[in-house]
């Protein structure tokens, strides 16, 4: 109410001098987004442009810098280390993300149903790993995975079983999936839980009057209603997976032989830039990686939109 009374005289003057008023209006708008634009340009666009520029050059230890066009990109597309890393992450994505999001959804539904006891502390407990820095989490898991003195291995040995080689070639990817799942289940759960809380309760009342069970309500009301939130977590997970860096970088210290330089594409870009001292090639890899992420995220979004349209029909 108050707004309209204050607005009135302004709009009158605006009517009197339409052109100037509009100009001032839009100028003010720009002023408001200015702080964001400055940061956006300085922190996103300029570095992006600079690395695009870098990726078109080649710098040799002997002979200096030379423009090479798209050579770095064509090279990366046939680079076994890079492609291997992308392939490994695709596998990671296909296995780990459904497990993690399924678990997160289950927890969110359980807490939301109100059936679970001490739901508040359960929520906190599930979310806690996210509050542990990734670096610390990886160090902690690295200790738990230890082949001779780690508690998991010792438990197996106490039972007279051969412990799985959790830091060996066959087990390392699974071990890493476990760390990432542990760490991000709570985070995804919170996103889904927040979406669940915003569903109007009338729907539940109507459903229970119709005699729907809790499972029925979850499947037919809750999950469809929070579909956008679930899609969001999927896209976050796609991005997160392809950008995995902390986990391989830290596990490299305890499983140095198994974690190769190209274990994940992001780790590879880092090694190319700082070990091989080839910043230009690293820039090209980073760009291609960005492209892969954009394409997959787009596909996820597109297919979900299609699915939604089908449902509506």
């Amino acid at each position, binding site marked *: 109410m108050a707004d309209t009374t204050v607005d009135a005289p302004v709009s009158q003057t605006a009517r009197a001098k339409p052109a100037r008023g509009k100009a001032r209006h839009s100028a003010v708008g720009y002023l408001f987004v200015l702080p964001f634009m400055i940061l956006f340009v300085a922190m996103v666009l300029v570095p992006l442009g600079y690395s695009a520029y870098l990726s078109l050059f080649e710098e*040799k*230890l*002997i*002979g200096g810098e030379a423009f090479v066009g798209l050579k770095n990109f064509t090279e990366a597309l046939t680079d076994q280390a890079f492609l291997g890393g992308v392939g490994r992450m695709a596998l990671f994505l296909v296995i780990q993300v459904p497990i993690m999001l399924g678990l997160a959804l289950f927890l969110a539904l359980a807490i939301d149903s109100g059936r679970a006891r001490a739901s508040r502390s359960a929520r906190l407990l599930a979310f806690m790993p996210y509050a542990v820095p990734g670096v610390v989490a990886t160090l902690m898991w*690295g*200790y738990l995975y*230890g*082949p*001779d*003195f*780690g508690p998991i291995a010792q438990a197996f040995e106490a039972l007279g079983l051969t412990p799985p080689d959790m830091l060996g070639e066959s087990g390392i990817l699974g071990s890493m999936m476990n760390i990432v799942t542990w760490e991000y289940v709570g985070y995804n759960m919170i996103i889904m839980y927040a979406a669940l809380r915003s569903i109007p309760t009338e729907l539940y009342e109507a459903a229970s009057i119709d005699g729907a069970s809790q499972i029925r309500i979850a499947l037919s009301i809750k999950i469809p209603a929070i579909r956008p939130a679930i899609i969001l977590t999927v896209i976050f997970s796609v991005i997160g997976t392809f950008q995995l860096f902390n986990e391989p970088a830290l596990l490299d*210290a*305890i*499983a*140095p*032989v*198994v974690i*190769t*330089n190209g274990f994940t594409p992001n780790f590879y870009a880092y*090694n190319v830039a*700082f*070990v*091989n*001292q080839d910043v230009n090639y690293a820039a090209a890899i980073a760009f291609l990686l960005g492209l892969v992420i954009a394409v997959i995220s787009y596909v996820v979004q597109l297919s979900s939109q299609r699915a939604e349209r089908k449902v509506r029909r």
Partner: protein
Amino acid sequence: MALAGTAAAFSFIATGCSAGDDGGTGEESAAPEVSTDAFDEAMSTPTKLTFWTWVPDIENQVALFEQAYPEIDVTVENVGQGLEHYQKLRSAIESGEGAPDVAQIEYQYIPSFTLTDSLLDLTPYGAADLGGDYVEWVWNQVAVNDGVWAIPQDTGPMGNLYRTDILKEAGYDEAPATYDEYAEAAKQVKEKTGAYISNLAANEPTQLVALLWQAGLEPFGYDGAETVTIDVNSDGAKDVVQYWQDLAQADLVSTDAGWTDNWFQNIANGNYAGWLVPAWGPIFLQGTAESTSGLWAAAPLPQWDAANPVSGNWGGSSDAVLASTENPIAAYELARWINAEPEPTMMFAQEQFLFPAALSVLEDPAFTDAEVEFFGGQQVNKIFAEISATVNPEFQWLPFMEFAYSSYNETVGVALEKKGDAVGALDDWQQQLVDYATEQGFTVQ
């Protein structure tokens, strides 16, 4: 004014030297030495220096330096250890801003900085006269390609640290003197005690390189300009790796990754009965395996030829002056003073436990005669001082050791870990190094 003039002249000379396309012979004698006047003036002018180093408590040595030269104010900065240190150093050099005046550099990375003309040739400042003050092989590490690029600080001549109790149980009163005996002892130790005689860490290229160094091999070489020599798959190198591969495949030597929690525990628990390790090993063990105090002993490495004992080096570092410094005289004096004067060098040896490069300390009974309780009262420093004198004097590096080590881990390291064909992996390592060098524009010999 005069100072600025001389500084400019020196930097001109320095670039002239490092560019040295023909590596001319008589050039250096033509370079004017810093006159005493110029030196005195530089050292009595208020000057600020920055020193990047990871050495703990080096502030103590720097404080002594500042006492000797009250006008010089040194800021010590620790920008990280290992790869991180060099990354930051390279970034600062590349950006042309923020680089320190003096930096700690390990011997194997010196060529990668002379390649980019980033280090000041210390010859005109009088460094050439210091050669006689250091062990010969160490001096050869810093005085390469017609220049002196750094002042040596500490070294890591390789020896054999072993558990006397475990070897005794296996029937040995002292360390095996030759590699044949070592292999036999490995069998006895495994049979009678269940321990491995030692661990050859699959991810530790520097350890294997030190063993190649001991065997008198020259896997790497760099002429200071555009030519590198890469010979990591020579017959000699294959013999050395074959020896370790055989032991690993017979499960007599483990190849666990080093510096992991698992590895620390194995050392402390006596699963490894020994460690082929440099002179910095003793102090490291005292911190890690405290509970085994008194059970250890130090000995020279096993030998290929017992009549002619030799060793290699693993680790150690030097202090270099960056070419970009505005105060080359003061920066040089800082690098020299803390590594050449008796007080700071003895302090490095006795308080920071860095194994010295300076002969004055290596020959000082105050250093060599110290008895170490952890080693059952043995005079460990004396043993390593003797070993230091047997390190092969000729050993060079590639100007891209970071890549060489990481490539080792992807080839030989993987094979060692899997107890597979490490000898064959030497060929892959060679190939990767040659490919990289060629790609980077080097001529490979």
